[in-house]
């Protein structure tokens, strides 16, 4: 009980989380505003480029790509206090457990990203459509652009395919988050490089070696498509969890020399 209380206490975690949010809320608001501005600009360009064939479902590709790029950028900056020795002191000497500090960072990066970034993008997207329609009306083009739709993905992707996409994104973000626990300098770039190399190597392996020789491949090929996708999703989520656990232990054992 004593040891458990030293690892996690709701009261202490709340105190720590509030103190971190009090310190960081301005940065978070600036990050959100910057992301909105960039999304507004990019979506405007996409709408102008596709104005003849704009479809309410087009934005979903934009959503996934933005989520991935924004997520990599935002999560790649996790644990900013570990980038400098002087700040590391403050991080490790703050009276909360390392687990609580890790969970808070996971919440601030992955949690806020997953909860708010799609909403932010959707809100910005709707605003972009409204602004574009106003401009089109002003220019005498009376046909209104179709509003954004979140149903399109459900129509074109099966639940298995969607879960595979979501799990893939969570895996990539988890690997980047774990990377920020390992590397002190330029963690985002290093992890993106390692991840890229891994994807290339595993694709080569899957395409030329495993597809013909591996018992696993034979086993997986005989599965129904949706079942296979669920197996891939589960595998990716387990790998993501392992990466996060590894990141936690790296933080826990880190020294401030």
């Amino acid at each position: 009980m004593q040891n458990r209380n030293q690892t996690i206490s709701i009261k202490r975690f709340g105190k720590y989380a509030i103190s971190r949010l009090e310190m960081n809320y301005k940065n978070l608001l600036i990050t959100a505003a910057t992301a909105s501005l960039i999304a507004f600009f990019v979506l405007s360009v996409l709408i102008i480029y596709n104005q003849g064939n704009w479809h309410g479902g087009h934005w979903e590709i934009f959503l996934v790509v933005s989520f991935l790029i924004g997520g990599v950028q935002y999560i790649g900056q996790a644990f900013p206090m570990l980038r400098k020795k002087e700040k590391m002191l403050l991080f490790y000497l703050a009276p909360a457990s390392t687990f609580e500090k890790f969970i808070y960072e996971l919440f601030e990066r992955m949690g806020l990203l997953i909860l708010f970034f799609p909403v932010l993008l959707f809100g910005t997207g709707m605003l972009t459509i409204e602004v574009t329609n106003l401009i089109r009306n002003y220019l005498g083009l009376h046909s209104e652009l179709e509003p954004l739709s979140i149903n399109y993905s459900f129509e074109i992707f099966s639940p298995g395919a969607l879960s595979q996409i979501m799990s893939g994104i969570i895996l990539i973000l988890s690997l980047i988050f774990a990377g920020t626990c390992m590397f002190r300098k330029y963690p985002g770039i290093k992890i993106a490089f390692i991840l890229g190399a891994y994807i290339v190597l595993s694709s080569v392996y899957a395409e030329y070696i495993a597809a013909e020789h591996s018992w696993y491949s034979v086993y997986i090929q005989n599965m129904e498509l949706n079942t296979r996708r669920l197996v891939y999703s589960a595998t990716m989520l387990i790998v993501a969890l392992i990466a996060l656990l590894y990141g936690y232990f790296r933080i826990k054992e880190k020294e401030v020399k």
Partner: protein
Amino acid sequence: MIQISNLNFGYRPTFQLFNNLSITQEPGSITGLLGVNGSGKSTLLKIIAGLIDAPQASIKVMNKAPFRRYPSFLEELFLVPEDFILPEITIRKYIKINAKFYPNFSQEKLEEIIFQFGINTRHKLTNFSHGQKKKFLIAFALSTNCKLLLFDEPTNGLDIPSKTIFRQVLASSVNENQLVLISTHQVKDVENLIDKILIINQGKIVFNQSLWDVSEKYAFTTSTKPEKENAIYQEPSAGGEKIIKPGNGAPSTVDIELLFNAVIHGIDLN
């Protein structure tokens, strides 16, 4: 409060900073941790604070293994490092955010020390000079009333009046349940402040005595010419020679710098 035994540690396998270093320190004192540059004073403080792991040694600080970094350990320890970065917020906000983590924090004490140091609490910490930031951090550390206070070169960057105030506030702020460990190579700055001396040299604690014991055992005198007999250690100074002689049991004023030099030159004064 601090029990360290058989501490062997080095940043490189080829160079051991500590060789079987052992210390025991009890609460109720302001202890000066003295040593030449690079002797490992800051590293020792970091090991005590749980920032560096030394798995082969037996280390207990407040009955806990420091590197486990338990919250109950961290809320009773405050380290003022030599170099630090403070967040870009006002002093008031810093206090509001951080004070709640320390169960014995005293707002009145903080205000009193801040007043003595002449710090303006409305300013942002980033607008302060390094010396002003350090004074604030020292004030905050003392106000936490933590059982263990660690100061790494606290007088570096302080002006002369602030050094005097530092000595005054520290001496008046600490109680018998606390242990204050001050690492410094500026021996003069901690004179009239510390009541125990630890000297670290070549990987070992070579001196560990209370100033009271030293003042009874030894006499610290000056002379216009070198002593031929009876001097344990002597060195030239502006007025002639500074000398350590065996004491006669009556307490004398300890010249910490002379004592430090004697120990570093291999004189056994334990």
